[in-house]
């Protein structure tokens, strides 16, 4: 009896630490990242809907607002501070815990080792540790908004001086903002550990005979993204350390002298808020590519698969993301055109920013070339999301050309145009890649197929919804509609824009509701979906063909020569 109990205990311990929560299996860790991102995106979308509601009906009384936020929504009306706190959390959650985690950490963990012909990442325990460090960061962020004085309100960019002087600058700038900085610091560490693992796996753990130029394009993009992470996250970590010292130890790295806040003279001297902007955007712009480059790799891979042919130009598809990443490290100044930088610097940053269009166009032509030259295009859900990605990437990229020019950016910079631009390219496009990856690799994640009919319905509604939501937002930007404002109903010059804002809000709610189709499809398919074949998409890479050989004995290295007889 005692022996049986002992065995059961050991079995439970084994389940928890070997295959459960603290598993070192890369697929388990991939699922953990996936569900963390899924939870984060649900929270992030709900926050954005609340924000949209407030922008259109700022004086609306909602009884449950008061129950949740007794201080910041007294009498059921959302205060400006609450709006800013929702905006901060929305931005932080979406940028860090959705767009960074899902395309890179979740899907790289899922298939990177096997696409390279391995069974595990280079450092499985480090892999598990990086997930739990990331989870600690997420919990810290959530903790920041349940504090009595309210969540942080400085936005995801946390610009000083207001974010660096503590509670003197307002509610939410106290402990909540300190928690926010801690959360981001911990996230940086988790991302660095993860990037270290991905790079080591790609360099050292490829199957014998597989050269770098035989890796799937997904592996290339994850590899380049991980290098970007190693180069950019430490800068955010250093900047976060300095701003925490400004807040907690009274230093003056980012806080200028003679600063008067709420009629109080702040006891700092000589610091520069611009210094934070340089450090932050040195991380922040590569972060945009950390979010989108894995998506590009996923799209290249899936389009090639369902076009039943190798990529139009494999080499161009490898070198373009490398060029984008390299140039992306040099353009942080274009976020600071109106912050007071030298016009010569602005011109340089502008030229380099524009030059990113060249490799981006090369990639787009590759995707289109691959699809157009397909002998038999398969328009299933994953492929549709990839084509949707291409569309959104081009649309969002074109508006980037406006913002990359200092003269035009001077007008657009603080308007809804910028919000529309980055939601189109960094938000929707990257999410389309995540949807595509989810449909494509769902059989590997759960052994079942994700429902195609509901998937296609979800795609069409989301695609239309994305344009219906974010295209009009550009026009609001043309009209000078400011961003980051909690309420602009009182501005006369914005009165003509209000019908547009109401349309955007209603579309946002509709688009949010459409995502329920995906959530339903996901969980239903996990539990009741059709059993997955071993290679449902006739995939040509090693995660589908672990034996590593085609029937004729030819090794399955990528880019594989595909026959179209199937």
């Amino acid at each position, binding site marked *: 009896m005692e022996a049986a109990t002992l065995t059961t205990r050991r079995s439970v311990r084994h389940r928890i630490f070997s295959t459960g929560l603290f598993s070192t299996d890369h697929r388990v860790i991939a699922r953990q990242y996936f569900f963390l991102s899924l939870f984060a995106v649900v929270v992030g979308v709900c926050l954005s809907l609340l924000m949209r509601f407030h922008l259109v009906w700022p004086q609306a009384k909602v009884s449950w607002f008061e129950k949740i936020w007794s201080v910041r929504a007294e009498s059921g009306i959302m205060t400006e501070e609450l709006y800013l706190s929702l905006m901060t959390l929305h931005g932080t959650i979406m940028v860090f815990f959705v767009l960074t985690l899902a395309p890179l950490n979740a899907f790289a963990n899922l298939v990177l080792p096997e696409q390279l012909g391995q069974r595990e990442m280079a450092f499985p325990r480090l892999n598990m540790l990086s997930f739990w460090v990331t989870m600690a960061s997420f919990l810290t962020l959530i903790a920041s908004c349940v504090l009595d004085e309210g969540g942080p309100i400085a936005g995801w960019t946390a610009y000083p001086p207001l974010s660096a002087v503590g509670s003197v600058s307002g509610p939410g700038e106290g402990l909540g903002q300190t928690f926010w900085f801690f959360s981001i610091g911990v996230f940086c560490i988790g991302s660095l550990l993860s990037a270290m693992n991905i790079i080591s796996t790609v360099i050292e753990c*490829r199957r014998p005979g597989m050269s770098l130029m035989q890796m799937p394009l997904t592996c290339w993009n994850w590899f380049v993204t991980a290098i970007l992470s190693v180069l*950019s996250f430490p800068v955010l970590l250093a900047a976060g350390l300095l701003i925490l010292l400004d807040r907690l130890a*009274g230093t003056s*790295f980012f806080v200028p*002298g003679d600063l008067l806040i709420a009629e109080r003279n702040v006891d700092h001297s000589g610091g520069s808020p611009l210094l934070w902007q340089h450090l932050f955007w040195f991380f922040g712009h590569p972060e945009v590519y950390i979010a989108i480059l894995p998506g590009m790799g996923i799209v290249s891979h899936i389009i090639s698969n369902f076009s039943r042919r190798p990529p139009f130009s494999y080499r161009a598809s490898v070198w373009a993301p490398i060029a984008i990443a390299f140039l992306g490290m040099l353009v942080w100044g274009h976020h600071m055109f109106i912050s007071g930088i030298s016009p010569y610097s602005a011109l340089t940053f502008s030229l380099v920013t524009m030059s990113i269009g060249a490799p981006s166009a090369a990639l787009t032509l590759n995707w289109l070339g691959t699809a157009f030259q397909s002998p038999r295009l398969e328009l299933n859900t994953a492929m549709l999301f990839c084509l949707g990605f291409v569309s959104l990437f081009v649309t969002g990229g074109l508006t980037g050309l406006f913002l990359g020019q200092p003269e035009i950016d001077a007008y657009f910079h603080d308007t809804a145009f910028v919000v529309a631009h980055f939601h189109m390219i960094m938000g929707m496009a990257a999410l389309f890649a995540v949807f595509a990856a989810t449909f494509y690799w769902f059989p590997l994640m759960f052994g079942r197929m994700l429902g195609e009919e509901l998937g296609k319905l979800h795609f069409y509604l989301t695609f239309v919804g994305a344009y219906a939501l974010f295209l009009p937002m550009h026009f609001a930007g043309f009209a000078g509609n400011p961003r980051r404002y909690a309420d602009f109903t009182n501005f006369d010059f914005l009165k003509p824009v209000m019908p547009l804002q109401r349309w955007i809000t209603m579309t946002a709610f509709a688009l949010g509701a459409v995502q329920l189709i995906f959530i339903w499809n996901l969980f239903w398919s996990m539990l009741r979906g059709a059993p997955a074949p*071993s290679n449902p998409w006739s995939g040509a890479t090693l995660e589908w063909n*672990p034996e590593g050989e085609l029937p004729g004995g030819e090794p399955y290295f990528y880019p594989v020569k595909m026959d179209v007889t199937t």
Partner: protein
Amino acid sequence: MATLTEPKVRSGGGPPPPITPLLPRGGDGSGGSGPDPSASAATARIAVYIGMCASTMTFMALLSAMFVRRGLATNNDWHRLPVPPLLWWNTVALLLSSVAVDIGRRAFRAGRRSEFRMLWLTGTALGTWFLIGQSINWKFLADHGFYMQHNPASAFFYVLTWAHAAHVIGALAALYYVACRALFFPFVPMNRNVLEVSAIFWHFLDVMWLLLMAIFEFWS
């Protein structure tokens, strides 16, 4: 030309089948290598090089912030910090530690275990001394009125030396681990990897410290 086969439907759901054993690994010069001891050492070295890149970026961000902040010191709030004399002795200790660790590593490779143990322990002890010496320096500066709040030069001194000390603590943990294994446990290949990568990282911290010292002495 290869032909893709029709998908085979498995009988039920659940996780995908386990991956069949792969080809023998070890590298053929054109591709990756596998988990044999030498390949693991290479993987560990790659990881430590990546860690060094990340640390370098952290220090470069802090140093560039320092350069910019000094350039902005328009209201004469930048006051040169006297370099505490003990800092030089600390530097010597760290350099000697690095030399001892490296000669110890070579002795280990040559199979001279007792020499290795002595040198590795010496290196570890000198590294520990460096850390203790740093805390004495911080106290020295605080006793002489140099706090973080009052002068950006001293703020950057504290930040940079703390960041370096945090790295030293991590590296010392690895040095102590190897030292304990060397003294109390038989060696296995895994420990050789720890030995190699901790020595590499220790040298990196040495170089980083020399850079910081040069900046403290000649520029700040």
